[in-house]
């Protein structure tokens, strides 16, 4: 096997990198691929709780680098989805426990063992970022339709391109009703500003909070629109790059539709 390493990055924190990593990873595994999601946020690990695997951690990525265990020993198998594995971060070390050369070294083993390796990048552009992108073949940059997040995304896209890593944009937490009202940047506005290709659009969905509460991957819920969007993103990363991008639409009630027909609202 010669797996592909994809880094999920954003610059700004709290835009949904970890949720995106867990969801895309789960979707790829449900498609039959052998997937490892790797928490690169040393000292502030979170991917394990989001995935509901926090009780099963034995070894972590720092242990792999230090030779205390093999990749296969550290990778926690998800019992709900075949072929999905988590390599957790260490909670007791800090970002300096790893360096980009370490990651380059263990990336060879990871590529041998998995089809896809998703690196959950920490916020910021310091050592943690350098570690997460060290061995990446491509990048998914996550942003929300907010000025702060878009500005940080621009910086990260610049840094990635300087390293020769191609990146695509995932716009998360779109609120269609606000976009319609003209109070939220549309995906087209964001693309205009950042001039980058999209990998997918995900709308704000209460189901994400609910599924994260219980540690269950959102893509397992058929009725979640965010979950379905993440599934399509996984398909685009998995050999179907031209799968059409669906723009989230607001589900309008009859009266709102009626109102907009006669000139109220939009």
């Amino acid at each position, binding site marked *: 096997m010669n797996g592909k390493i994809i880094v999920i990055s954003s610059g700004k924190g709290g835009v949904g990198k970890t949720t995106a990593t867990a969801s895309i990873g789960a979707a790829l595994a449900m498609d039959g691929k052998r997937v490892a999601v790797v928490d690169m946020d040393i000292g502030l690990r979170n991917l394990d709780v989001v995935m509901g695997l926090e009780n099963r951690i034995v070894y972590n990525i720092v242990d792999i680098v230090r030779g205390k265990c093999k990749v296969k020993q550290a990778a926690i198998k998800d019992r709900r989805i075949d072929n999905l594995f988590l390599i957790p971060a260490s909670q007791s070390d800090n970002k300096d426990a790893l360096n980009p050369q370490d990651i380059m070294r263990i990336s060879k083993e990871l590529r041998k063992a998995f089809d896809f390796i998703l690196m959950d990048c920490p916020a910021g552009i310091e050592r943690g970022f350098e570690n997460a992108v060290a061995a990446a073949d491509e990048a998914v940059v996550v942003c929300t339709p907010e000025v702060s997040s*878009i500005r940080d995304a621009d*910086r990260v896209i*610049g840094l990635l391109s300087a390293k020769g890593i191609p990146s695509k944009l995932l716009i998360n937490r779109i609120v269609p009703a606000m976009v319609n009202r*003209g109070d*939220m*940047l549309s995906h087209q506005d964001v693309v205009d*500003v950042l001039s980058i290709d999209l990998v997918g659009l995900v709308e704000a969905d209460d189901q994400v909070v609910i599924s994260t509460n219980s540690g269950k991957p959102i893509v397992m819920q058929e009725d979640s629109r965010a979950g379905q969007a993440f599934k399509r993103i996984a398909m685009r990363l998995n050999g179907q790059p031209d799968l059409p991008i669906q723009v989230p639409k607001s589900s309008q009630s009859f009266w709102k539709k009626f109102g907009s027909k006669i000139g109220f*609202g939009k």
Partner: protein
Amino acid sequence: MLSDFMRKLFGKNGSKDIAKKRLQFALVYDRLEVSDDMLKEMQNEIVAVISRYFVIDRDQLKLDITRHDDLSALMLNTPIISAKTRQRTANPRVADKKGKGQKFSGAKNRAI
């Protein structure tokens, strides 16, 4: 719904247009930000090139990036002491320009 209607009536746009404009400006400036190391390196390279043709006062040399609303400029200010009389001129056009170069001594050179 009513507020939307009022907004339409008065032709007021949503806040996203402001956001987009602000972002576009911010990113133009962000992308121009150069680290001091890079600036220093570039200065050394430019000085090396100029020094092949002119004798310049390196101590008074100044490199700056200035920004205005519609234009950003890289400014290199250098007093030129004299042109170099070069023995080997690979490019004849360089030889032609030598004489003219002196007229510009002390002038500001601007490049975008």
